[in-house]
């Protein structure tokens, strides 16, 4: 495979063509914080935590490393002042949105932020709209039972019409992948309740085929 040479934080390295900047940085052992990124899912560049600075001074700009492809000779800074400032504000904004989300608190603390200077509209909000659940349900589970609805002012993850969804198979993958543990999910007395629907849990019969079958034939 063809390789591309580029500079990350002043270090020259070669990576396969088609790599993203994030992958290249990981190969170098450089740690870039991410939130909406998952190696098994298509990247969408939503959270902007993984931004890096590219180009030659003074014409540099920030791009999200999870989608930006490596280019020959590209000069990349992963922890420049401009990058750190952007990450700090992004985290501070997220902390105002979801003040109780453990992951955000931790990520923010790493950048020295313990409290947001911005107003918190809902102190109990946990969702940061990273979209991992939506992508998992669509790309991995393949049923698309949940999606984003509305634009900025009222954007949220939901089932259609905020009702129990016929498409949901109760697999719980969305709740599993959620980094802030916001997806309501109850399991007790052999039942699982998720997205307003109840699924009977069936003992695992080892064979995946059968397992899937049992899940898809659960009673409402």
């Amino acid at each position, binding site marked *: 495979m063809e390789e591309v040479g580029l500079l990350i934080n002043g270090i020259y390295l070669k990576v396969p063509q088609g790599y993203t900047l994030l992958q290249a940085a990981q190969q170098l052992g450089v740690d870039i914080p991410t939130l909406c990124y998952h190696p098994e899912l298509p990247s*969408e560049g939503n959270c902007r935590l993984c931004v890096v600075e590219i180009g030659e001074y003074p014409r540099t700009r*920030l791009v999200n490393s999870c989608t930006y492809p490596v280019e020959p000779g590209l000069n990349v800074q992963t922890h420049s002042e401009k990058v750190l400032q952007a990450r700090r504000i992004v985290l501070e904004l997220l902390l*105002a949105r979801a003040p109780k989300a453990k992951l955000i608190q931790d990520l923010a603390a790493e950048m020295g932020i313990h409290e947001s200077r911005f107003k918190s509209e809902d102190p109990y909000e946990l969702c940061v709209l990273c979209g991992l659940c939506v992508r998992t349900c669509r790309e991995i589970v393949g049923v698309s039972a949940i999606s984003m609805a509305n634009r900025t*002012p009222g954007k949220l993850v939901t089932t259609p019409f905020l009702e129990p969804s016929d498409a949901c198979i109760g697999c719980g993958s969305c709740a599993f992948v959620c980094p802030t543990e916001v997806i309501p999910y109850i399991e007790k007395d052999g039942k699982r309740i998720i997205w307003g629907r109840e699924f009977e849990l069936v003992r695992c019969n080892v064979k995946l085929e059968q397992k899937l079958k049992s899940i898809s034939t659960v009673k409402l």
Partner: protein
Amino acid sequence: MPKIESVDHLTEYRRQIRAQRDPKQQQILVCSGPGCLPLGSTEVAGAFQEQMQEKGLQGKVILKSTGCHGLCAHGVRVLLRPQEIAYQKVTPEDVPEIVETTLIGGKVVERLVYQDPDSGQTAVHKSEIPFYQGQKPLVLRKLDEIDPESLDDYLVVGGYRTLRKVLFKMSPEEVIDAVERSGLRGRGGAGFLTGRKWRLCRQVPGEVKFVICNGDEGDPGAFMDRAVMEGDPHAIIEGMIVGGYAIGAHQGYIYVRHEYPLAVKRLTQAVAQAREFGLLGNNILRSGFDFDIKISQGSGAFVCGEETALIASIEGNIGEPMPRPPYPAQKGLFGMPTVINNVETWANVPEIINMGPEWFAALGTEKSKGTKVFSLVGAVNHTGLVEVPMGTTLRQIIFELGGGIPGGREFKAVQTGGPSGGCIPKQFLDLPVDYDSLQEVGSIMGSGGMIVMDTTSCMVDVARYFISFLFEESCGKCTPCREGLRQLLNILNDITSGEGKEEHITLMEEICTTMASASLCGLGQSAANPVLTTLKYFRAEYEAHIRDKKCPALVCRPLLTYTIDPEACTACLACVRECPVGAISGPKKEAQHIDQDICIKCGRCHDVCQFDAVKVE
């Protein structure tokens, strides 16, 4: 309409219709552009129709409803050709007099001609009106001349002439060369070189490619593209055929916002005409080139003007922008290489091909070639559409063409570039208007909205207005824009309602910097401009709101007090009826009084008072 079989047939057909037309024939051209339509141009045209019938003028006089005549302030506008008499503020009641006096009597109706707001001097002919004198109309040239619903009209003025040249005499590379040499830059905002964009797309291998016309025009305060789509739809189609040929695309899309129903109708009609006539479809004029166009309607989302969001919308998805690269030229509509250009960009193309790139490049400044259409609105005497060479100064546009600020008030700022642009203060009035100069002062060219503000506008309120607009319109995909706008709006709401704190200014600056650098698309990246420019040029106004809890321009209502001047009050009780909370009372037939504890400062009493008795502080 005949089906045109070949390019010679087209020339022959054009010759025929030209021969049928007498340039000396009396024409009545009623403006039905975005400005005149709401003032009743349909009724005016109807009145002419009636009068012509009554006076037996049918067949002798041609009546047309045309696109925008430019000087919207004085609508409804009527132009009489060949005399070039320009009437303004025409109502259906004026029509019998125009017909009687001018059409039959050959005299001018003096009270309907242009009058200078200061000197009182009148001008009968279009060419004598100062508003038109400094202009250089290329894109708007045909708007007051042709019936936008008539393909024949477009052909008579030389429409679709480029096809002979482009499809038969030029290679695609030569077309791209010409556009590149003309120096044409995109008119939709960013000002990317159009020729270069086309070349990039042509170079990407692939059988299937697309061209798109961006007619989303979501910038509030802008209606240039609307005027062109409604007034000269075939120019856009012609430009797109040229572009399609150049990059090797066989399908084009025109994306129009649904808030422009007339534009949708005219474009749909024009595409159907062109198809029927043989100018769209397979093997156009037997050149071997196939090209067709579909109309796609927006559904109310400003962000869909952004190219990747627009593409997502045509594909049937929500209008969320995608990270670039890949650029649309590499991977656009349905994953295929796609060129997307603005309405005005496309409309410039035919003339560049016809007149040659050197002719076009001779207009404008070194880095911004040609002309630009602006919608000049707000606190200016001559509101309307203007088209001037790039590099014309703001002062020329606002004071010479625009006739200055009404009511003897003072100029305060001009807002360019819509929500992505900035407010430019007085000290930059001599700035030449081109892509780079505007950027230097913190604004952008944008699509061409130019909103003039006088001392009655509060710049903090203006910033709050744009942020609240963008907050509603942001797609919500990425954090800096979604959460940044939310917090900016919170802060600006606080400041304009008297809750501002000193540290708010720094907080806003920090949010703005990150929104600009780290947002995914242009909406978030430029959303900070209205705040940053007002903070930079009008900081004292922010400070007055924050420190003194005062709005110097008397706009931010929570910071105002309404009182009734007992001397001026006539006890008409109009305000008492209007007040939604019953805060106004008083003895019968005596001056009324506002109870400050009940008053919610909605200002409606002030609006309805005919006697200026409601005072604001």
